[in-house]
């Protein structure tokens, strides 16, 4: 029924038999099954692939990638890296046949700045990063530019924070540069926790050196000697990759004392989180780094003047930082050729839910939502109709199909009272119940509310209860106005943006899909809701 996404041709001949092709096949099939790829990847045993004297040979189509000398362990790597994550294993690859067809086609419509090296270089080898121009920007910054000139370039580029708020990065850096005191910090926020988002993970795992280079540039610009990467605790591979990359950079004298024989010294530590969504909020993150509960701080003062240990601190998102080396290498003017005048550059999105090609894409700012869903995401599966979209993560907006022509950048979304957030795009077909989705989002907020302030703690709890009543067909229409009253109060009185932002999903869902909410309120049975009508304690 399903059409295979990829074919793996394994050349089986006498030579291959001797080289152990049977074991390779067994491991390959096992790994494909384990990764859940059976429905999409077909393993085909063929005769010789025309490659001889090189042991077991494999070709992956439609990518047109050939591997030779494949051992059973390699077969596993190919399954995990290429078939699952979509990045060919360069170490084993034969220089032949140009990549074509689907993955290539989709790549063709993207503009890759942030993800330029992901899936292209080996993230475990610093030499590969250097070979594609890596650390050039850092070298130029520390040897030819003053810190002020670096900040100016970033300001001119118009780069804005990709962690959600869209704050101009150059302005932030300049505030930290101007803040008094000798001790300053650069923190990379890699606590990625917005549901439906994994862009930062891919950057950490696919191009960790880019992040290190960017942090060093930021540190040089603001005058910091210590950097910290705060990584989500569950991201084991990310932690391993970035740690390894830091060690390599030290060996090459790109981190540590007197970088590139200049007076600039800087080093980076990796700190894993411990599973609290609110720690992605910058002041909660700082509290956590100080060994405390991640309770957001009351602002002002802001981290740019009073951050980690009360010292001036830059907190930047992974994707924001990943733009910096390219901006310095190719210049602010080049960067401004991408995106829109007020939101230059690209944006990385995760397109998920009911689309044919779920995954990660990078396109210029201002790309219409329709292009993302229908061209890059491949649209909905055959015969299914679009019901709505959830844009920007849990604290995002539910949008109806009529919103498909909105341009995806900070300002165009703000005009529609929506947000870019983490760049998560969740596509929902007509079988989805929006009421049920909102229930899931609200359970998430109740679980993740840190409990520090009453409006959010009590508000999220009340919302989950009201939703449960609504989903059970009890309570009537007044539940809807009650919910809106609660989120309005939370927006005004909550201490941090977590509590304040719950209003967005609630109001956009209730406004945009009013009929569906009314049907529930009137007690019309909804088969998709009953199963979820019982709030489960302790579950997000």
């Amino acid at each position, binding site marked *: 029924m399903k059409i295979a996404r990829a074919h793996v041709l394994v050349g089986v001949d006498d030579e291959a038999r001797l080289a152990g092709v049977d074991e390779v096949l067994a491991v390959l099939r096992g790994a494909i099954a384990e990764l859940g790829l059976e429905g999409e990847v077909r393993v085909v045993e063929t005769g010789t692939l025309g490659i001889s004297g090189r042991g077991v040979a494999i070709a992956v189509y439609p990518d047109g990638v050939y591997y030779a000398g494949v051992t059973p362990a390699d077969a596993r790597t190919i399954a995990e890296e290429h078939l699952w994550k979509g990045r060919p294993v360069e170490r084993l690859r034969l220089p032949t046949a140009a990549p074509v067809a689907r993955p290539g086609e989709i790549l063709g419509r993207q503009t890759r700045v942030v993800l330029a090296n992901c899936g292209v270089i080996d993230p475990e080898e610093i030499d590969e990063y250097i070979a594609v121009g890596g650390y050039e920007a850092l070298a130029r910054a520390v040897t030819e530019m003053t810190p002020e000139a670096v900040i100016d370039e970033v300001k001119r580029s118009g780069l804005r924070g990709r962690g959600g708020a869209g704050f101009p990065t150059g302005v932030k850096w300049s505030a930290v540069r101007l803040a008094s005191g000798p001790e300053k910090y650069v923190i990379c926020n890699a606590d990625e926790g*917005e549901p439906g988002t*994994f862009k930062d993970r891919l950057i950490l795992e696919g191009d960790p050196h880019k992040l290190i280079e960017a942090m060093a540039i930021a540190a040089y610009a603001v005058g910091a000697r210590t950097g910290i990467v705060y990584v989500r605790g*569950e991201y084991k591979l990310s932690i391993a990759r970035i740690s390894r990359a830091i060690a390599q950079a030290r060996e090459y004298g790109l981190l540590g004392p007197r970088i590139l024989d200049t007076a600039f010294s800087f080093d980076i530590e990796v700190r894993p989180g411990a599973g*609290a969504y609110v720690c992605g909020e910058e002041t909660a993150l700082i509290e956590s780094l100080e060994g*405390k509960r991640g309770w957001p701080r009351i602002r002002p003062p802001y981290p740019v003047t009073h951050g980690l240990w009360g010292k001036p601190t830059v907190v930047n998102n992974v994707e924001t930082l990943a733009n910096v080396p390219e901006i310095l290498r190719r210049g602010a003017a080049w960067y401004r050729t991408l995106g829109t005048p007020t939101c230059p550059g690209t944006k990385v999105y995760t397109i*998920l839910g009911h689309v044919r090609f779920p995954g990660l894409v990078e396109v210029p700012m201002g790309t219409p939502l329709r292009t993302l869903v229908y061209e890059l995401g491949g649209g909905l599966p055959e015969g299914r109709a679009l019901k709505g979209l959830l844009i920007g993560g*849990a604290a995002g907006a539910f949008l109806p199909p009529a919103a498909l022509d909105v341009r995806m950048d900070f300002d165009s979304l703000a005009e529609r009272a929506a947000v870019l957030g983490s760049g998560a795009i969740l596509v929902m077909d007509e079988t989805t119940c929006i009421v049920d989705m909102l229930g899931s989002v609200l359970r998430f907020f109740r679980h993740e509310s*840190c409990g520090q302030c009453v409006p959010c703690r009590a508000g999220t709890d009340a919302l989950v209860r009201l939703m449960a009543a609504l989903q059970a067909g009890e309570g009537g229409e007044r539940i809807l106005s009650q919910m809106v009253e609660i989120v309005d109060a939370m927006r005004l009185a909550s201490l941090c943006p977590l509590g304040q932002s719950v209003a967005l999903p609630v109001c956009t869902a209730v406004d945009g899909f009013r009929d569906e909410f009314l049907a529930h309120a009137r007690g019309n049975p909804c088969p998709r809701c009953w199963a979820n009508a019982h709030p489960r304690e302790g579950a*997000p």
Partner: protein
Amino acid sequence: MTVEIEARVAELVKPYAGKRSELIQALHRVQSELGHIPKAAQAVVAEALGVPPSQVTGVVSFYHFFRTAPAGQHTVRLCLGTACHVRGAERVLKAIQEELGVGLGATSADGMFTVEGVRCLGACGLAPVMMVDDEVYGRLDPKRVKRILREVGKDGG
């Protein structure tokens, strides 16, 4: 028993002695060795790092990752994030319940599996997703999840 644990924990947190800011790493270390962070261990950690015991308790209860009671031999973390929800995480949960006889937040009667609901694991492209210990399993459906649990139960026994 308690004395033994205390001695072991004291050894584990030695590298963090006096480092208040590294409380979370110290706790990570204790949990990865003991599987959980018992009350007795919390006092030792507080003492070693020089933080008030109430701060340690506060931190342990705040972060979802830390647990104060032992878990089963394997921990199943089912993602209940939006992308998994929209692709049928609830059906997978039902299958887990059928297979293990317990739901979220509980440990199976044979002590083999603890089941937890977690937020987005950042593997949404494979939704619905779960982690069993450190392994990620994607594109779950009721049949597949049962098969995986049986296999893990068999060789992890």
